[in-house]
């Protein structure tokens, strides 16, 4: 589906989110539980600020030396019998994977949850090539049956209730039991076991690759990534090029930060590191292993003031504390990446054009920055996005400029203003890679030329948000 989800205007998506009562209740209670889990885990770990500092230092060192570590990683994977493909664009990645699948004459592919494969729209490519793709993460499996996009990066089916899930199982898979979560899960376990055992190819994402030895690590609770990597003969891991650590020692720190920040667990049930193909005499594990390393717009963020956005470890802590996300839900962002990190990253990966509302989907309360385990200054990035958008629009044709007045107003809201003076930004820094980013990677399916932004006379996001709050529905 590509990074962009759907073509509905931002306003309509937000409206839909607001109108979905169950979704808002679910989001809000999930936020509360994730948040208290994270705080509890942080407290138990002790020295949380030290951990965050260490996390930031590791990410920053790794990104500064990305070419070195990627080269080391590829050498190691290749030494252990794996094939490595560097993909500049989504198309290149899709084409390579499609060729592997074709060569294997694969009929069935099992996948474990992966945001980067969503980002590049891999499933659609594979289905067009005639293969059946089965998502095996429980939440993703449910969504796949309903052809629904995910709304949260840790619990993707957050917007669905158990009655809806029961109905989906009944109509799509002949399920006959109750809507008890345990019974639903048991049914999914039985159904998906058959898929795992009969799949020709397994596809995963990658939480962290270890450069020194070529290990690719998956962090899960359900165990599906283990099944995907243990059973099919061919295995393909797809990683965003920034998702790696120098050595096993940094892996420990990053995994510890991820599981605590994401779900408040000391470790998830499974942290699994696989290296290349299975060794001689081993029975399970892949005979044929591929690692696909994806750029797809990421390199354009390197060397800019937004580089730290690439430090993200996709833990969703920023999403779980965001008051705007709480009200509008994940689908409103119209991107594979929702919440504050989505608002920062999506315009960088996909251009401002389709996503210029996103930097305004924030109250700049800085809760995201405070929650982030690797200390990404998310709200500062959002302020910079706004400055850039406003600045750009000044140079644009008059008709567009009028439309953009609305944004200028939002951008000059007292909170934003206070913040930018606080950060002592006297002048706008030159945005050197401006034009490149504006072009965007744009290889994305579902892309349209329609520009969707609210007309200036409309209620502003902030004003609207305030009314919602006063309305007391939270």
């Amino acid at each position, binding site marked *: 589906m590509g990074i962009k989800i759907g073509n509905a205007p931002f306003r309509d998506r937000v409206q839909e989110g607001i109108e979905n009562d169950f979704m808002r209740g679910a989001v809000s209670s999930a936020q509360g539980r994730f948040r208290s889990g994270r705080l509890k885990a942080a407290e138990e770990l002790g*020295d949380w600020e*030290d*951990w965050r500092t*260490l996390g930031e*230092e*590791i990410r920053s060192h790794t990104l500064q030396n*990305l*070419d*070195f570590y*990627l080269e080391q990683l590829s050498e190691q994977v*290749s030494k252990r019998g794996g*094939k490595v*493909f*560097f*993909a*500049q664009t989504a198309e*290149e990645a899709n084409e390579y994977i499609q060729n592997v699948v074709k060569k294997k004459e694969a009929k069935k592919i099992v996948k474990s949850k992966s945001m980067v494969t969503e980002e590049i729209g891999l499933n659609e490519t594979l289905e067009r090539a005639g293969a059946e793709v089965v998502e095996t*993460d*429980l*939440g993703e499996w449910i969504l796949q049956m309903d052809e629904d996009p995910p709304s949260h990066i840790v619990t993707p*089916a*957050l917007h669905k209730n*158990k009655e809806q*899930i029961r109905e989906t199982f009944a109509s799509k898979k002949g399920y006959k039991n109750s809507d008890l*979560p345990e019974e*639903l*899960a048991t049914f*999914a*376990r039985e159904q998906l*076991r058959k898929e*795992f055992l009969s799949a020709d190819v397994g596809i995963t994402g990658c939480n962290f690759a270890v450069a020194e030895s070529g*290990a690719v690590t998956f962090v899960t*609770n*359900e165990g*599906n990534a283990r*099944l995907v990597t*243990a059973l099919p003969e061919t295995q393909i891991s797809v990683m965003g090029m920034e998702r790696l650590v120098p*050595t*096993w*020692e*940094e892996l*420990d720190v990053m995994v510890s930060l991820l599981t605590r920040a994401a779900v408040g*667990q*000391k470790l998830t*049930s*499974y*942290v*699994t*590191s696989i290296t*290349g*193909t*299975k060794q001689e*005499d*081993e029975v*399970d*594990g892949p005979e044929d292993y591929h690692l696909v390393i994806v*750029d797809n717009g990421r390199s*354009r963020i*390197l*060397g800019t003031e937004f580089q730290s956005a690439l430090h993200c470890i996709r833990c969703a802590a920023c999403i779980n504390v965001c008051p705007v996300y709480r009200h509008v839900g994940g689908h409103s962002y119209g991107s594979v990446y929702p919440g504050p990190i989505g608002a920062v990253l999506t315009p960088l990966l996909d251009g401002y054009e389709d996503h210029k509302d996103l930097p305004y989907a924030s109250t700049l309360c800085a809760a995201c920055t405070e929650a982030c385990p690797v200390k990404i200054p998310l709200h500062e990035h959002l302020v910079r996005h706004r400055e850039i958008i406003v600045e750009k629009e000044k140079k644009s044709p008059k008709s567009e400029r009028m439309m953009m007045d609305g944004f200028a107003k939002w951008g000059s809201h007292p909170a934003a203003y206070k913040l930018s003076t606080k950060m002592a930004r006297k002048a706008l820094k030159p945005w050197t890679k401006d034009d490149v980013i504006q072009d965007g990677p744009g290889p994305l399916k579902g892309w349209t030329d329609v520009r969707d932004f609210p007309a200036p006379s409309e209620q502003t996001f902030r004003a609207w948000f305030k009314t919602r709050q006063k309305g007391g529905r939270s």
Partner: protein
Amino acid sequence: MSIQNRESFLNNVADQLGRKRRSKGVTRPQYSVEPQWRVFEGATQDELVDKLEDQCRVIHTHFKRSTMDTLTEVISQSIEENDGHAVVAADDQRNDEYGLTSFYENLHDEGVAFHLWDPSSGRENVHFAERADVGITFSDVTLAESGTVTLFNHQGNGRSISLLPRTYIAIIPKSTLVPRMSQAVRHIHKAHADGVDVSSCVSFITGPSNSADIEMNLIVGVHGPVKATYIVVEDM
């Protein structure tokens, strides 16, 4: 060709970073803080066992203790509690030392189908594990803080043993306990530096599988094992 498109890809990364390509000479910095080494610093082996026991409550895992003498009895009990009619176990050097080889052989007499992982019978191993009620392995390194057993999977310890059966039983020699993941990965890091290949699959397993994907209710037992039992053995 086992590595494709690397040069142009990495040259571009270097360009964007605004410097020449780096192919060597990068070393890790001295990090300003290292909080990981302070967790359970100086704890004795017995204290670590207690921490593990506490953590087992959090991760929905049965915790048991045994001596070298009572181990087989405790395993036998655990199999029974979990309705184990078919059992698969790893072929581990420690099986003899812990008296498990003869114990496993005798399981047949008690009406329990038993299979010892054997690479020579290929995929049959996986099919047996798929049908088995219980899978048993030793833990190679055990993390007290998170309640995690670490397996360096190898030809005698297939990935499926701890994954496919409904119940997973881990035998944890007390000597394998360390405070947290940091000690386990330091071991791997050092071994790698000494030229030892890291195992093709390193599994850090923390209790049974679970999911919160349906209305945020915790469901224990999804794709992997539904139940887990840890047996700590006095081996020191």
